[in-house]
């Protein structure tokens, strides 16, 4: 629980800072307006430094520009958006669960679309424009991670892991560098990159299982299972390294792990396909 403020007097400008996204909230708020994290629950940080992503309470509302998003369900959560006029969100179309008929649909033209089609990425990103309601879910148990993105932020996300993003955020993709990173990185050739330019926006990811985040200092590194990588600040570098596991017989086996080096945030998921032990 948040400790009561030192001064009992009512201060009109008192605010609570969300420990997950650093957004400021009114004192009476139970959940952060910007990311939905419960404000009355302390950050859960393991001794090793991983922070558990906040479990968003059922039916929590999140606001961005003139729209609201409600997160419903705790097994396979649904993000339901009430789009204000002029607001829009973009996503991969197979995550749509239901919509009102009046929500207008269009597609986003992407540079290099053909290359991506060959790489098995969605060729087309769909856009839904308000006013109206539309809801999204992904086909597996897990958590919704709400990342408010402020101007100047750049995030790299595992392909197909983003559920939706608000229109203020620019979407592109980066080729993962290095052949061994592609072959043994466990996530294909491309990563989604989200960049905010002038206005703040919201990015909602779906992680399989539970999601954990840690902030790496400059030069600090951590080795993670490539299949578990979910997102990172673009300032974090990722390199797949091999570890030889000797069995005493013949050649033994090799194991690949992604070396993430700071500065910046790294997010991982606890359910993943284990790729290419070779």
């Amino acid at each position: 629980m948040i400790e009561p403020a030192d001064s009992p007097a009512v201060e009109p400008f008192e605010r609570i800072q969300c420990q997950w996204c650093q957004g400021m909230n009114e004192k009476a708020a139970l959940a952060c307006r910007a990311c939905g994290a419960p404000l009355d629950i302390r950050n859960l940080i393991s001794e090793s430094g991983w922070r558990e992503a906040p479990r968003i309470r059922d039916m929590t509302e999140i606001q961005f520009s003139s729209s609201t998003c409600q997160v419903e369900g705790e097994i396979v959560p649904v993000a339901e958006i009430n789009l204000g006029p002029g607001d829009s969100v973009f996503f991969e179309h197979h995550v749509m669960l239901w919509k009102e008929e009046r929500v207008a649909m269009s597609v986003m033209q992407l540079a290099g679309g053909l290359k991506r089609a060959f790489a098995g990425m969605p060729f087309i990103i769909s856009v839904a424009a308000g006013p109206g309601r539309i809801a999204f879910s992904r086909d597996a148990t897990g958590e919704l991670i709400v990342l408010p993105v402020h101007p100047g932020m750049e995030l790299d996300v595992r392909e197909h892991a983003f559920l939706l993003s608000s229109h203020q955020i620019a979407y592109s993709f980066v080729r993962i560098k290095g052949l061994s990173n592609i072959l043994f990185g466990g996530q294909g050739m491309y990563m989604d990159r989200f960049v905010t330019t002038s206005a703040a926006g919201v990015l909602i990811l779906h992680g399989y299982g539970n999601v954990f985040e840690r902030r790496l200092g400059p030069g600090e590194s951590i080795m993670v299972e490539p299949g578990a990588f979910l997102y990172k600040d673009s300032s974090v570098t990722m390199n797949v390294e091999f570890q030889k596991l000797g069995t005493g017989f013949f050649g033994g086996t090799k194991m690949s792990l992604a070396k993430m080096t700071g500065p910046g945030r790294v997010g991982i998921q606890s359910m993943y396909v284990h790729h290419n032990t070779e």
Partner: protein
Amino acid sequence: MFCVSCGTPILEEQNFCGKCGQTVKRPAPPSRPAAVPAAVPAGARCNWCGADADLSQSACPHCGATLKLPAAAAESGWTKLPARKDMAKLQIGNSSCQIEGQYVPVADMNLAAGDSVYFTHHVLLWRDPQVNVTSMSLKGAWKRMFAGLPLIMTQAEGPGHIAFSKDDPGELIPVALQPGQSIDVREHMLLAATSTVTYDWFQTGIWFSTKNGDDTETHYPVGCYMDRFTSARTPGLLLLHAGGNVFVRNLAPGQTILVKPTALVFKDPTVGMQLHFEHPGAQVAFWRSWGNRYLWLRLTGPGRVAIQSVFERLEGESRNISQWSNATTTRW
């Protein structure tokens, strides 16, 4: 019957447990109808199943929903399945059913003598040895086999315990059917039903075919057949299992909503279904414009509909659709 304190089997004539000495408490004779509160306060109804409920109880005896909590309704009109306490117990005539676990829930039925339930055999988790399991013949076996529906339903007769689960994280949906009430359920959703519920099926009439050269393939986004369960004279209980979280809403007459076809769980028979194609707007016309078309199921009220948040990938959506059942199209 078993000893309540140590679980040792007890014979009919025993008054004490042979192992631990516990006095045997016999349940009321099963011929007596289940205790129904004599005076139900006016307007005391379960929000979820609509049955009369005694508000002094914490959970609805027909469907297990917590009575004192308001339903968690989203602003858009969808309601989450009612909160159900772990180990909630439902009463069906002389039998009862306890719902255990909240991740992959188990329906644990305590069948009274003469009561029976039917189910598809792969959902059986465990049973008492004395529960009699037989197969139930179904009409139209050939057609069912072609449609990929279970050919054989298994029937279990009390007295004794039998438990069911499906191997998926999700929610268990108890649907209490009042006499004369029917419900349409998408195939493979049934966990178990009491034998007072009759089981029938009908063709959905929702299909489209895709063409690739000379190959034509027909797809059924909500299944070729849909199950229809009806309670004829006595109230019945239907236990469904859906993946992920389940949301329900009531559609007013003429009100429509577009849902992902594979997310549908059940609907009232009064709710109409229709295919809907939506073409998003784009600056450039693609030569393969169907590649980014969305396929929806339009549900039209009046009636109740339920969807699940986990759904299978819809097949054939982005291929060349050559023919389809009655559908509408929007081009943005």
